[in-house]
């Protein structure tokens, strides 16, 4: 049997994969197998899924509704377009930032848009390290300055409260 990749040499590496609920078999010559990162044979047990079924993030590209280029998460700054490319969100707050778009995606992925498993309320706040606390304080102070400059007084009040909580909790 000829190698399915180069169609020149004999295939000696036989691989079996289960991707998207289909059994795929690949028959490769040693050189092409090595190119696909399978140089160590089956011993590592892992393959790069995008080599075999193309880029999985196409899944998100197809399923996510188009949106204004400027849409981004207010907390971590992740652009919606980046999310569409990678399929990975940046922080828990992204779920609020992209709620409308995610609702559509969730109905396609899960066939549902509303969590109905166990409810959860967070335990006591974390004992953060000094470095993380000061990093967060710095961030909050910078955002506060920005909000005041933009005369966003509501935002400034919220940030001031957050600052107080952080200072109080770790003071």
């Amino acid at each position, binding site marked *: 049997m000829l190698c399915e990749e180069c169609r020149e040499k004999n295939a000696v590496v036989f*691989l*079996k*994969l*289960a991707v*998207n*609920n*289909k*059994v795929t078999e690949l028959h490769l010559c040693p050189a092409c197998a090595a190119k696909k990162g399978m140089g*160590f*044979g*089956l*011993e*590592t*047990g*892992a*393959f*790069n*899924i995008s080599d075999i079924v193309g880029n999985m993030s196409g899944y998100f590209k197809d399923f996510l509704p188009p949106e204004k280029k400027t849409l981004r998460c207010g907390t*971590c700054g*992740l652009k919606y377009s980046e999310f569409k490319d*990678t*399929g*990975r*969100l*940046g*922080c*828990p707050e992204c*779920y*609020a930032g992209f*709620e409308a778009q*995610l609702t559509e*995606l*969730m109905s396609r*992925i*899960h*066939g*549902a*848009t*509303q*969590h*109905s*498993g*166990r*409810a*959860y*309320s*967070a*335990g*006591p*706040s*974390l004992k*953060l*390290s000094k*470095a*993380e606390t000061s*990093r*967060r304080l710095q961030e909050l102070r910078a955002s506060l300055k920005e909000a005041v400059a933009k005369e966003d007084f509501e935002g400034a009040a919220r940030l001031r409260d957050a600052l107080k909580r952080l200072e109080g909790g770790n003071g």
Partner: protein
Amino acid sequence: MAELIKSFRPYVTWANAHGAWPDMIFSTRVRFARNLEGFPFPNRAEPRQLAEIRRLALAAAKQTGLFSRGHYLKFEALGPLEKRFLVERHHVSHALAAAVLPAGAAVANDEDLSVMVNEEDHLRLQCLNSGFAIDEAFRAALKLDEALGRELPFAYGPKFGFLTACPTNAGTGMRVSCLAHLPALSRLGQMPQVLESLSHLGVTARGIYGEGTYVLGDFYQISNATCLGRGEEEFCQNIDRVIRNLIRQEIAARETLLKGPFKLKTEDAVFRALGLLRHARTLSYEEFMQNISLVRMGAAMGWNMGVDFSTFNQVTLLMQPAHIQAAAGRALDPAERDIFRAESLRKKLG
């Protein structure tokens, strides 16, 4: 040889065949994906934030009391062989083993509970049980989840549930999976249809080490494809039904293999495989998996293979590349591994 591997037990309790349907279901796993409020997900966090998350997560794991005399691991302190060993024990994923950022893990002394830190999500916590044991694995994983959730503020919202880096895991954040051994269905060429039918049932099949891994020795990891919109128990029940159905199909396929003209062919294949495993002088991991698959099936069909299912399960773990090197006490190249594997297997199978 690495101290870490020596600190693990040579045998794994969850690989003993004390669960239900040990000849078809190797193990059952329930995992929860969880993230900490106030931190970016690992893919967007800075190394020092990841280090902070790991510090908090490992401290919380300790606080639960479920990891006493367990292992607390920082990945930058581990070598490739040690990481590979953890993958082979199914405690961490390939992705985590390959990570260069501050990643970590906590593994319980019994190796039934573990927590991966800073993989795709801040925490991936899991319970592994022997055989077909969805309910037990679910309860134990939930206990760990609740204990950690008291120590750490998890990112959660009433609409999307537990918030995860990839929206495919949001909601319950739960994945229930069974490692199913389906040699007869494979031999009869029925796996393509079986997998096709699974996709209509909200279920996914993957290779032996989970996402993005090969199918070896006819082992398939069967798990729920979705995790939002229903309760945890409902997702468990769905997988439970699917697995029971799969077991019935595999039993029927095994019966077919014992009928009429098939019988001699099956018996011949099984005993040839046993002969190969008992007498080979060099044996690759892939060849081992192909043949142990047939021998396992032969034992389930009632033929005397000389060893019990617990031994099959244990050797299936012990023949993996990092385990072989751990047993040898040094790093071996693939050809040396194959010789060592054949030798140690001959001793175990008598």
